[in-house]
């Protein structure tokens, strides 16, 4: 289980045929987690191994690959973990 960087042709086909007209031109993602590997002990989030830093731009790009629209706002908050560096996560 890992964060997928590249969509398969079938993913793209679904996005194109069944989702492209679903999301309005402007949308607000109310639940988005930015991620920085430096904020957690190694291995905390296995699915994000090798994902690198995921910020607002990565969020928009990641979502818009299957739900294309023009403007995507986000409500961002860090992944909660007891072992995380919360001051850094919240910075």
């Amino acid at each position, binding site marked *: *289980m*890992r*964060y*997928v960087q590249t*969509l*398969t042709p*079938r*993913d793209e086909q*679904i*996005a194109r045929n*069944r*989702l492209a007209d*679903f*999301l*309005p031109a*402007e*949308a*607000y*993602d*109310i*639940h*988005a*987690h*930015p*991620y920085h590997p430096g904020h957690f002990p190694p291995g905390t989030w296995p*699915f*994000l191994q090798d*994902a690198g830093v*995921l*910020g*607002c*731009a*990565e*969020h928009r790009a*990641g*979502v818009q690959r*299957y*739900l294309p629209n023009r*403007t*995507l*706002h*986000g*409500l*961002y*908050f*860090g992944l*909660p*973990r*007891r072992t*995380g560096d*919360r001051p850094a*996560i*919240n910075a």
Partner: protein
Amino acid sequence: MRTHGTPLSRALRVVAPTDDPDDVAASIRDGRFCGIKVYHCFAARPDTMHATIEEYARDWMWEILHETRGAMILHIVRDGAMEDESNQQQLRRLCRRYPNARPILAHVARSFSYRNARRGLHVLADLDNVVIDTSAVCEAESFRAAIETLGPRRILWGTDFAVDGVRGRCVTTGDLFFWLHPELIKPEHQAPTRDDMTLVGIESALTLREACEDAGLTQGDLDDLFLRNALRTLSAHLPAAAVPPPTQGIELWQRAKATIAGGTGLLSKRAEMFDERAWPAYFTRASGCSVWDLNGQRYRDFAGGVGAILLGYGDRDVDRAVGRRISAGTYCSLVNPQEVELAETLLGLHPWAGRVRYARGGGDAMSIAVRIARAATGRSGVAFCGYHGWHDWYLAANLGEQSALDGHLLPGLEPKGVPRELRGTAQPFKYNDLASLDAALAKLDGNLAAIVMEPMRSQLPKDDFLQKVKARAAAAGAVFVVDEVTSGLRYGFPGAMARLGIEPDIVVYAKAMSNGYPFGTVIGRESVMQQATGSFISSSYWTDGVGPAAALAVLAKVHRLGVFEQMWERGAAFQAGLREVAARHPQCALTIGGMPSTPTLTFNLGPDAPLAQTLYIRRMRERGFLVASYAYMMLAQRDEDRSAMLEALDVTLAEISRSISEGRLEADSGVARGLRGFARLA
């Protein structure tokens, strides 16, 4: 976020119970964050998946959010999610204590198991500050339950980025759920399509779309779900220009009056009948005894849909019966067999009757009844008491005599367009007044086709009044028609006449009989109905399937639960409560009358009555109640709804008393003294 986010993007601070409240509050007040993210992992116990909400979302956090109108993403845990009793109790307490806080329950209130959604989301319906997000849920049934229970104005789209980028989905199993990922499937069990298991985000979006399509959501609903609901939820932390402006129902009402004759089809729903200045006028959804206006403001409704709703709005049993009919088709070239099932049910409840007819509203059904009476007798005269609708036979009473209908519920009804040749065919008489009936019969001079009346409305029959009316009809060879449009199912089962032990020639039902769906029925003696067979009475949509499906479900439920008895008993207690409150405010001169299941409230203030009435409606609306000069009991109203209404009434009457004593009633109500306001007579 500030560097790379869009101008309207915002952030939440991840907060633990051990954090410094002052520091957290400061970081929201100074705009760094618009709220907080709490999580069970910060609860002080080893098995945090069983933590209660208060263990990780402490009161001090809610207090800060209440002060700052901040948001909280709340991911509840414990098996059962919103089905869990402690989650329910704690969330209710916190949301009510901190109403300005904006909790966003993540993952459809953690309904990864759609069964949790189906059985638990109803708890959120009357928590007005709670919304949910859709993130990472992959069960269309969870979304359907949310749409049905909360409506599209309380659902916010979310992705759970970066979880959305993982292949797999969450599936319901038993009462729990299971995260299915391709890596969990052993090679020997892998299907050839293994690599094609799609992303959580795609699966979530697909199932959300399916649920939205199944529910028939409009583009406007989707715009709410994907954008506007989020902007409203975060409004205190966004530029004012970015937040959708509230829609004033009264403004839409002005547009309606410019495009729809009369503004709407029912006189009793016109805003002017309540409070022309601030009546919400329009609803976006109605459920139980709650009504939500165009801005999502919830009201507890004591106006009862003008008497059409007995069980409550969107009653599940009735809606399911109607839904089944809609799925199978409501209208085609053949006839809906439920018509026969319903006819046999109705005749079973009225053993004196032999035939039924169907209509789609009370006025139509009453018009059919009068036509039948005229056809059966070959005469045209009608003696009537009470209110019976808009048709010519009834309004003819006001031809040449503008006040004949006064005292029959809605005074001042104009007979414009009613053929003047009908003058003299309808003669009114007063309830419990045999002399007035005899006078009406004398005016009809042997031309009596029917005596038409409601069995009772604001007073009970005295001295065998109904028996005597029936005897006079029989003696005159006329048809005794009883209008149970309002009293049916409320004053007895199936109606007041059955309770009073009187068998008329024709009885008419509508309103509560179908609990919000168009329907009316005429039930008559075999002889009368047969004599009228040759009269052409026919209409396409009198054969549609929705009304009969609803009526069958209503009759079954009302009978099964003893709804009439319950409403009468609860109404009597409520009526006593109303009298108690009214007595505390003698300056208001408020008289409580009517039947227990439909109490009436009348300000006996002469020309000031409409002013006090308007102020009463306005102040009660401000306190979250829709009221009128009558109150219709609904099964969906709980004891706490009635208690809250009485408390609000107490405060409201105190305010009106002050307005009266300080001579400010006209100014406070905004109604000019001498202009007629709400004029429904009880």
